[in-house]
C-alpha cells in the first residue's frame, strides 16, 4: 500500500508476518505487535518502538521517540492548487481572534516587517507584518471583526506591477 506524508512516499508490502517498508531510498521491515486506543507497538528492523497516532482531517499527529509531529497526508488528485504567479502573498489568520487594529489601506506601499494588522486572541496581541516589500492588494477585513483560523486577511502584491 502506498501513502504519502509531508511529500514523502511510503510503500508497505505485506510479507505475511509483517511488512516491508520502502521510504525514500531506505528499506525497512515492520511488524505490528499491538495496536489499541491510538497506541501502536511496532518492531522496526527488529527494534521495539511505541508510537501514538491521532487523526485530525488530513493531519496525523504522531509521537515517537519523545518527539511529536503533525504530518500531512497527501491524497492523489487533491494536490494543492498552485497560483500561476508568485507576485501575490495572502496573509491568513494564524488563529481565531479579533482584529484590533488595521494600520494600512488598500494600495498603500509597505516594507518588509512592517506591522499591517494587529489581532487579539487569548488576551494577547499578535502582529501581522509584511512578508516582503510591496503594496497592499486587497484588504479583506476591518477593525473589530472576528476572524477564523486560516481566514485570508490581506493580500500583499509586488510593488511594480506591469
Amino acid at each position: 500500500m502506498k501513502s504519502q506524508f509531508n511529500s514523502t512516499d511510503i510503500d508497505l508490502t505485506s510479507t505475511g508476518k509483517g511488512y516491508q517498508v520502502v521510504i525514500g531510498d531506505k528499506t525497512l521491515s515492520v511488524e505490528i505487535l499491538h495496536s489499541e486506543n491510538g497506541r501502536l507497538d511496532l518492531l522496526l528492523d527488529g527494534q521495539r518502538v511505541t508510537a501514538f497516532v491521532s487523526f485530525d482531517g488530513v493531519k496525523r499527529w504522531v509521537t515517537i521517540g519523545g518527539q511529536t509531529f503533525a504530518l500531512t497526508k497527501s491524497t492523489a488528485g487533491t494536490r494543492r492548487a498552485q497560483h500561476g504567479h508568485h507576485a501575490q502573498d495572502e496573509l491568513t489568520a494564524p488563529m481565531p481572534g479579533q482584529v484590533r487594529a488595521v494600520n494600512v489601506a488598500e494600495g498603500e506601499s509597505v516594507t518588509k516587517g512592517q506591522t499591517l494588522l494587529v489581532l487579539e486572541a487569548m488576551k494577547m496581541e499578535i502582529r501581522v507584518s509584511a512578508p516582503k516589500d510591496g503594496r497592499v492588494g486587497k484588504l479583506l477585513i476591518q477593525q473589530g471583526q472576528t476572524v477564523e483560523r486560516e481566514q485570508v486577511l490581506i493580500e500583499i502584491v509586488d510593488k511594480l506591477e506591469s
Partner: protein
Amino acid sequence: MFKKILIANRGEIAVRIIRACRELGVKSVAVYSEVDKNALHVQMADEAVLLGGAAPRESYLNADRILQAALDTKAEAVHPGYGFLSENASFAAAVDSAKLTFIGPSADSIRAMGDKAESKIRMKAAGVPTVPGFEGLESVDEFRQAAEEIGYPVLVKAAAGGGGKGMRVVESQADLTESIEGARREALNAFGDERLLIEKYLPNAHHIEFQVFGDQHGNLIHLFERECSVQRRHQKIIEETPSPLLTPELRTQMGAAAVAAAKAVNYFNAGTIEFIVDPNTLKFYFLEMNTRLQVEHPVTELVAGLDLVQWQLRIAAGEPFPFTQSDFRQRGHAIECRVYAEDPAGGFLPSTGRLLQFIEPRGPGIRVDSGFRAGDEVTHFYDPMLAKLIVHAEDREAAIRRMQAALREFVVHGVTTNIDFMGDLLAHEDFHNGQVTTRWVETKFGWQAGEPTVEALVAAAVVELGQKSQVEGQSVEAYSPWKVASGFRN
C-alpha cells in the same frame, strides 16, 4: 477551618485548590463559563455554579455573579487562584463587605502592590532596590524624554499590569510611539487601566523571585527563591529552585529584602516578590510583587516541604504560622515546565483544538498539575497553558534528567505544544550552566522543529493500513483513530 469555599477560577489551579480542600475536609464550589461546563474542575468540585458566557468578562471576571454564587451556596470564603480577579483589590474588598473571607492578602495590600507605579515608590521608601525609571507620565513626549534620560532599551509596562500583558521592550525611539499605543491598548483591555510606567530594560538579567508567606498575627517568612529566567514574550516557561545563580550570601540578602518589601505593605497569606538580577554584578532590583498564589508555586512546595495552598486556607481561617524562618531549608532541586498549547517554531502563537490524546507522564518525583483531559477543547478564550509538569530530585542534574525523561513521555495531540521545545531547551549547555537570561529564548536559542523522522512516517503509514480496512467513504471520527484494531494483525 471553613466548611465550604468557592473557587473563583478554572483549569489546573481550580483543580489544585479542590485537591487541597479535599485533604482539609473542606467542601468546594466551582464556578464555570458555558464552554467549561464539562471541564475537570467542574466535575471534581462538590458543587458547581454557571456564571455566564465564555468571554471572561461574562464569567470568571464577573465579580457580582461570583459573589452571588458564593452567597447562594453558603460558601464562607473565596479562593481567587491566579489571574482573573486574584489581584483585583475591589473584588477582595467586595468579598469582605459580603461578610465572606478572601483567601489572600488584604485589599489594601493588593491595592498598594497592584499598582506598579505606587509599589515602586513604596519600595524605594522601604529601602528595597528598584530599577531606574519613571512613574506617572502621560504624553508621548514625556515618555520620549524619560527614555532618553534612562537610555534605550527601555521597558514600558502597564501600571495595573502583570503576566507580561501591556508590556513592551522598546529598542529605539522609532518604535516608542507604536509600543506605547500597543501597550496601552493591551493594558486597557486586560486591566481596564491604560497607565504605563517606563524603566531601564536590562536585557541580560535573571528573573528571580522569592516566595513570601505571612499569617494574620504578624509572622512573615520567605520560602526561598524561584529562578524564572526561561521566558518568551515576558512570560515564564520553565522555573526552578534553587537558582543556579544565587550564592548563600545573595540568597540571604534577597530573602531579607523580600521580607522587608512584604512587611512594607502589611502583607499576609502567600505572595511573591519578583527581582531582576544582573548576573555580572549580582546586583538585584525589585520588579513587582504578585499578591496571590503563583503559577509556579509547586517547585517551592517540593523544595521547602510545605503545601502552600493548604496553608493559604489555614491562614485565611486565622491560624497562626507555627514556623519560623530557621525551620526551613531547601531540600533537593525542583523544576517546573509549563506545557502550553502554542507553536514555538511559529512565534509561540497559541494553538487551539480538541485534545485527541493527552497522556501525562508518571513516576517517582513527577507531579502533573493539569486541568485538561483527552477530548477536551482548547479554546481561544483562556490562557493556553495545558498543564504544569513538575519534578523533584536530589540535585539539579538529576532533576534535569528526570524532567527530560518525563517530557518524552508526555503525549499531547490535537494542538501544537511546546513539549519538544522544552526538551531541547533543557539539553542546551547554557541551561546546564545556569546562564539563561530573560531574553535568551528569543535572542539566542533559535529553536527549530525537527524534521519528521523515518519512524514517525512509517508509523503514520502503518495506521493507514487500519484505515483501508474500514468501509470506503465512511468518515472516521477525528479523535478516535482505528477503532477496528483487529484490521491490523495479519
